């Protein structure tokens, strides 16, 4: 609600918003245009007279073809998908159960356990990756998908638990008590009454967890070594840069294609994602 002349609307609202949106989205446009630009145009210095940054007259699929023929990009996509889905599933099961226990049951040390889980939520991956790499090696999990499927839940479970606690707290106790009076066991009331009601929360937690594990980088970088085990972010980094030669076309094509699954999941569930995001900090 900006009062006054039209120019005020432009200066205080449209221009700043337009500028910020442009800034936030331009790199994606740049990814797209680089991915379809032929090499001849790509490696033309910025001060060349025929430098046309924002469009290309002869778009090409060459970079995408390179990605699938010269690298095992498909395998990386598959690996990432399997790892993201598996670690999300594990985290959801653990997080929902733990969230239920911490928000709706009375037991000794409930408060300190909740605080403990909140603290692990704030532990960044970069704090522990070196000892964790050693442990992974000792368990003989190195260079297998299990190295990531089992370690990703360490940053996903605390988040899922935290988010689910918020959802569970909002469900009235009476709902459960009704079922108990009708003869349901404690765990049945949880499984058939409370958890279905919290389904939107579970969906939010799941989507957020999926995008987080799709994005994870440092564990995947340190725990995986053979090309056919890698995830998209690590595969792109390690196989499309040789020494200091960057294969920019395929790199950008890979960045674009590697982003599509999260973008799709996100586009279908924007509201749930936003709920997960804001829930993750509000608590």
């Amino acid at each position, binding site marked *: 609600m900006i009062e006054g002349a039209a120019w005020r609307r432009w200066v205080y*609202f449209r221009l*700043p918003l337009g500028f*910020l*949106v442009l800034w936030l*989205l331009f*790199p*994606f446009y*740049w*990814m797209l245009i680089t991915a379809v630009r032929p090499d001849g145009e790509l490696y*033309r210095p910025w001060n060349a007279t025929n430098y046309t*940054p924002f469009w290309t007259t002869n778009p090409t699929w060459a970079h995408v073809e390179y990605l699938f023929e010269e690298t095992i990009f498909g395998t990386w996509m598959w690996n990432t998908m399997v790892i993201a889905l598996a670690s999300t599933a594990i985290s959801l099961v*653990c997080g929902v*159960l*733990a969230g*239920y*226990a911490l928000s709706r*049951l009375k*037991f000794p040390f*409930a408060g300190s*356990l909740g605080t403990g889980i909140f*603290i692990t939520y*704030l*532990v*960044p*991956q*970069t*704090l*522990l*990756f*070196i*000892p964790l790499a*050693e*442990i992974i090696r000792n368990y003989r999990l190195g260079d297998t998908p299990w190295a990531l499927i089992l370690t990703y839940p*360490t940053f996903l*479970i*605390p988040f899922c*638990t935290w988010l689910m606690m918020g959802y569970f707290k909002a469900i009235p106790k009476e*709902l459960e008590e*009704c079922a108990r009076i009708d003869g*349901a066991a*404690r*765990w*049945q009331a949880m499984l058939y009454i409370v958890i279905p009601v919290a389904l939107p929360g579970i969906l939010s937690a799941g989507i957020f967890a999926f995008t987080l594990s799709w*994005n994870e980088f440092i564990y995947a970088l340190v725990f995986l070594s053979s090309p056919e085990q890698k995830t*998209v*972010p690590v595969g792109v980094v390690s196989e499309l840069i040789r020494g200091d030669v*960057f294969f920019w076309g395929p*790199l*950008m094509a890979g*960045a674009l294609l*590697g*982003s599509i699954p*999260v973008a799709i999941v*996100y586009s279908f569930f*924007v509201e749930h*994602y*936003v709920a997960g995001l*804001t829930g993750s*900090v509000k*608590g």
Partner: protein
Amino acid sequence: MTVSTAGTIRAAPQAPRSVPRRRLLEDERWLAFVLLVPTMVLLCLFIAYPFARGIILSVTDSRVGVPGTFVGAANFERIWNDGIFRQAVYNTFVYTGVTTVFKLGIGLWLALLLNRHFKGKAIVRAFILLPFIIPTVLSTFAWKWMFDPTFSVINWGLFQLGLIKRSINWLGDPDLAMFSIMVVNVWRGVPFFAISLLAGLQTISPELNEAAAIDGARPWQRFWHITWPLLLPVTMVVVLFSIIQTFADFQIVYVMTGGGPANATHLFATYAYQIGVGTGLLSQGAAISLAMFPILFLVVIVQLLYIRRVETR
């Protein structure tokens, strides 16, 4: 819907004595224990144990494949006297401080802009979250390509605007490289701030602002005396959360410069990676990582106290 199914649930077993395990689960304490076991096992195995292991590593002289012997605080002494480590500590503080200020400023601005009614608001809101959703490593490559000294579209743009005469080597000069990295971090973090703060703004009743407007408060006064105080709890949590993430950041620096040129842009995490994984000096790398801990711990404590205070108010 779910309530109606409640009545149809099979009744609990008639003879409780024959199924003592079921009865055990009727006790809230046992049920809680059972529900928490999977989480506790995973968190102990992959957070608590590595943490203890990291501390042990940092006081030995292990390398890859060589179990070390106890050396006390020698690793910490060595990194303390290491010029690159000191540079990395300095960088991390500057990086965290500067980017947090900008992320908060720009994020709040964007949140205030998005808190208005306009056509296409839902689409704009959905699109601006993209930098936060798309894998950071992949989008950072787009930035690295944009900052390429020879092919930079940014150089081209600045030249067309008449702001520069010669090529700028964005990632080749230590100060410029740090600046470029910060730009990317702010770019990635702004959507998170904007959307979280927007959620906070939406809980503020518009009537408060309208009442103040009727009383003659200027827009700036309304922001400072009404919006900002009400938004402060959300802002605090978002800022503390972001500080932790930024302080421990790895991906952006790893992709943009790898810590270069000449180790000038290392952060804790990238230097720990270079020493611990690149060079194979496991215990020294672990020591560098752990050196982050006191500061992270402090931030976590502040955050916990703050949440407590807000909850008990």
